[in-house]
């Protein structure tokens, strides 16, 4: 249960970014989270409300895009999606796969903000 520290890092990181956009308010924060990242979306959402309270992110929406495991299968010579975490085998040929190309991501993809437009 380290989602609170994960989400706190998100809040710090976005707050830092907002310095370049004075007065802006945050509508949405979008994350990319691989299924092997060991974080649970529900827990992230729950902690987000707590961690964002009293910050410029308060009231914004957290959008979590969950990424499946993609591995390179040397037998098929192509990248394949691994449908289950119970077996790291190529779903096409059944060979074990250990060369993972996606699934461990834990990143902030983008933020959607409302900027203050300067009036002349």
């Amino acid at each position, binding site marked *: *249960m*380290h989602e609170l*520290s*994960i989400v706190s*890092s*998100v809040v710090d*990181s*976005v707050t830092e*970014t907002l310095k370049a*956009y004075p007065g802006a308010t945050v*509508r949405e924060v979008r*994350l990319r989270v691989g*299924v*092997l*990242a*060991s*974080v649970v979306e529900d827990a992230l959402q729950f902690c987000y409300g707590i961690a964002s309270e009293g910050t410029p992110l308060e009231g914004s929406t957290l959008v979590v895009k969950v990424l499946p495991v993609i591995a390179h299968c040397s037998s098929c010579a192509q990248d394949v999606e691994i449908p289950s*975490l*119970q*077996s*790291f*085998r190529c779903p096409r040929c059944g060979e*074990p*796969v*250990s060369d*993972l190309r996606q699934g*461990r991501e*834990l*990143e*902030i*993809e*983008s*933020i*959607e*903000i*409302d*900027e*203050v*437009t300067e009036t002349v």
Partner: protein
Amino acid sequence: MTTRIVELRRGILKKNDELAAGLRGRFEAAGVLVLNLVSSPGTGKTAFLQRTLTELLARGSRAAALVGDLETDNDARRLAASGAPVRQINTHGICHLEAEMVGKHLEGWDLGALDYLFIENVGNLVCPSSYDLGEKIRVALLSVTEGEDKPLKYPTMFNSADAAVITKIDIAEACSFDREVALRNINEIRPGIRVFETSAKTGAGLAEWLDYLARERSARER
């Protein structure tokens, strides 16, 4: 008001990852092989590590350990009985070790005077998998008392491991431990991983483990 999307593409644990990369550079420059030991509480990480340290010192190797727990320095005292330098990291509630804690607790140690540094993580098979500590080898341990399906239950950790250690093999029979099933499950989650079947009590499997450590260490010197 104008709405704008700002692309960030930034790792959430960027700070930890950067610190870990810095540590990894220091470890490599010093020629010390660093291992991060992860398991559930009660697997026997400390007993396994104590035996490993004792054996390494007896072979003339220079080894040290950092050990993480929420509270108490009990494990550091147990490990120090091996004669190796040991430091306790108390996380005070945090469920995993982070690179910053490791860096802080290395202060004053001459890494160049070490062949091996073991980092015993907090007993937890979930959270430590997200935190790089700058280690070369991540070792996932499971004991024969935990059930052969542990790797299936915690695939994120076992998939991130470089080696697996089965502990308490001396009581396998009493636990009706099905070795074949356990090995199959480990391999299903992390195909091709090196597995060591060990007992800190009897010393079973320790020779293979120590040979592996020596090989990994000399591979670094090349």
